[in-house]
């Protein structure tokens, strides 16, 4: 091929190749940055592990793809062929197709099967440990109603028929199980290092319980009681955001998530005045 090729050097050959090579440079600069919110949960380490694994492997594919594309542009840009072009055989084409298939089977399916599903199973499909702190969170436009069961370990029953502006959860204040329940608005207190189980509900539309630092996100769906658990690993105050469009105040549906050392948490809990 090389001896019957006439080369020209159009401007766009250089520009395009440079453009295609600039993209991996930008990708590496961005990809090397520390974008994730500081981690504060146990299972979150698994999610971060997957994200890092993908940033490196998928990032490498992006870099290689663009370097090759830029090189082909540079090499074949502007050449004038005088002779014929020889088609690769169907077999060659099939063999080459194995390259992306094998790579992506490893990178993408491997990422799901080896790294992803164990963490997924632990977060979603395993029962909460017996020593979990159980917290009921009921989302509404545009607030988080937080409830602890109190010393009896039982949540008082709720009924939507009893909901009023003063009784946002529809509690029955005369019920013995309700009397020691602790109600908080837009703030959640949890102990460090113990499993936290969230019972998530919604009384109006869809919401999503999003704790960026904990790599936790779960939609709240009216008519459904959804449970999940995780273990906080860092003391501090973190933000709770709504991640599913829920109306006008979606962008300011903010809550606070306080992780306290265990003793301080017990102290906080004992200081709370119960519902009734």
């Amino acid at each position, binding site marked *: *091929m090389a001896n019957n090729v006439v080369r020209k050097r159009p401007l*766009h*050959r250089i520009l*395009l190749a440079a453009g295609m090579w600039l*993209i991996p440079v930008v990708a590496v600069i961005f*990809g090397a940055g520390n*974008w994730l*919110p500081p981690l504060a949960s146990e299972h979150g380490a698994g999610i971060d592990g997957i*994200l890092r694994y*993908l940033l490196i492997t*998928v990032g490498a594919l*992006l870099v290689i793809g*663009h370097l*090759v*594309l830029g090189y082909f*542009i540079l090499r*074949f840009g*502007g*050449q004038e*062929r005088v002779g*014929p*072009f020889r*088609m690769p055989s169907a077999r060659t*084409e099939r063999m080459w197709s194995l390259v*992306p*298939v094998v790579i*992506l089977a490893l990178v*993408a399916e491997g990422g*799901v099967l080896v*790294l*992803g*599903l164990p*963490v*997924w199973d632990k977060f979603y*499909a395993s029962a909460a440990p017996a020593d979990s702190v159980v917290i009921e969170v009921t989302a*509404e436009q545009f607030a988080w109603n937080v409830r602890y069961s109190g010393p009896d370990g039982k949540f008082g029953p709720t009924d*939507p028929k009893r*909901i009023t502006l003063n009784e946002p959860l529809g509690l029955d204040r005369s019920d013995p199980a309700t009397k020691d329940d602790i109600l908080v608005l837009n703030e959640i207190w949890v102990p460090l290092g113990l499993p936290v189980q969230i019972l998530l509900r919604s009384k*109006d*539309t869809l919401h*999503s319980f*999003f704790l960026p630092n904990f*790599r*936790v*996100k779960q939609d709240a769906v*009216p*008519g*459904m009681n*959804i449970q999940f658990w995780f273990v906080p690993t860092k003391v501090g105050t973190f*933000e709770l*955001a709504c*991640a599913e*469009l829920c*109306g*006008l*105040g*979606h*962008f*300011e549906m*903010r809550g606070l998530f306080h992780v306290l050392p265990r003793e301080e948490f017990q102290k906080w809990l004992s200081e709370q005045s119960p519902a009734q």
Partner: protein
Amino acid sequence: MLTAPEIDPVHAPTGFIRRYIFSTDHKVIGMQYLLTAMFMALVAGALAMLMRLQLAWPGQKWPLLARIFPDGMAGGVMKPEFYLSLITMHGTLMVFFVISFALLGGFGNFLIPLQIGARDMAYPFLNMLSYWTAVPASLIMLASFFVEGGAASAGWTSYPPLSAVREAVPGSQWGQTLWILGMAIFIASFTMGGLNFVVTILNERTKGMTMMRLPMTIWTLFIASALGLLAFPPLTAAAILLLFDRHFGTSFYLPAGMFFGNKLLPHAGGTPLLWQHLFWFLGHPEVYVLLLPALGVVLDILPAFTRKPIFGHRMTMYSLWTIAVLSMIVWGHHMYVSGMSPYVGEFFAIGTMAITLPSAIIGMNMIASLWGGTLRFRTPMLFAIGAISLFGTGGLGGIFLGNATSDIHLHDTYFVVGHFHYMIGGVTLFGLLAGVYYWFPKMFGRMLNESWGKVHFWVTLVGFYSVFFGMHFIGLGGQPRRYYDFTKFEFLKPFTEMNLFISIAAFVLGAAQLLFLLNFFWSWFRGTKADSNPWQAATLEWSAASPPPHDNWGEKLPVVHRWPYDYSLPEATEDYAPQIAAPAGGRSGSWR
């Protein structure tokens, strides 16, 4: 193979209205779709500019805009409900009324008869009806901005209860009802068009045009139409159920115990998840309905500007079909954290990752198609190469989201916004623009201005990466989508400058498209005259006159002797052989 019987020469209609308004000529209808799409793109693009204005300078007063939108921007400050209408309508208009209109309605109608050697579509009247059904659908969508409560504001996905309960959000009053009606009429229009495409491609091919000699554009349009015909009906059903929930007191999507506006709603028994399943059963294939024709355009442009067939024609074809089939069974990857069973989520994660395999084959084949070519850097080729880059970057980003576990963190963040703009925003836009630059001479007999085109390409490519690439990373940082204002959260503060940069880049990207519109209309009437085959391309449409006459081919239909990519043949003196060139030799006769 069936061929259209030779009929009396078709006489072109003479009156203005029959010729240009209520025309049954596929070329005129294609053009009508393309122009409608361009108008809708102006509207939907302007909505995006308004969104970025708010996100760059939240709460800023814009007195001039208060005059244009006395309600949504009363006092010059954008209201949250107006912002939600903007995101909803930007998404809806762009997906259904811009990209679908342009790629399927525009290119599909214009190209199918020309590339398969027919005089028109199989059902010309149905074709006209399809367009004139799409017009009221568009008008209804646009009108929804002017009703009480404003346009729909539950997002383009229109999840209930927000979209089902009138008290939930202002746009859920008449705006949402109009959205449902507009979508239902749009789907009726799409169904007529899609049926017509499938029937025409199967039945109206000229002599010698076997299925395997069809160019990639036709193949992808065929697959996309079939996919759309399978996927759209569930959304129609879903939309009707939603309409019933809204107006007739049913509870398909609404459970018991919902408390809105200080009152308990009387619904019981439904679940919002039903809508999500039905919506994404359409919504995911719809991505490929838009993406595949854009890839088809790119795959057809590459041979003409590399002077060789694409690499891996067969494997690409198998991959396109595999993607189409798989796309029907992966919708649940939009619902990993929706409350759906986590075990179902695992199935969808594994299935979604399977799509990366054929997609990667297509991506690699597109890059490999440059190998050994003689590259000609005309504007269509530039946009085609841009589309390859975007397909790579966007597709790779999808691997983060398809993995259910990492999606826990990334779901509904700007990572998703960045990703889907690369795929259904970027690959489709670049494929579309590549196609317009490429087929403009066939449409109007004139060339688009090449220098303006190159400027347009560079600003669009740099602008596109500037707007959407960084979104992936602020998504990693957790910035949620559909937020009217990012200043309420501490953890979003570090992204303030990034959001400002994205907005400014978006304004540049938007302005560059005006340059294209200017070029389009100027070149339509004043552009350099083009001959019938300015790119020396081999596909059949370039054997017709530019612009083609009413019956496309004059007295005799063309006869096809070879596949559409006979470039740089060993035995030929010319470096390409059009499909009508006889006798067959070299690679023709088979797929090759």
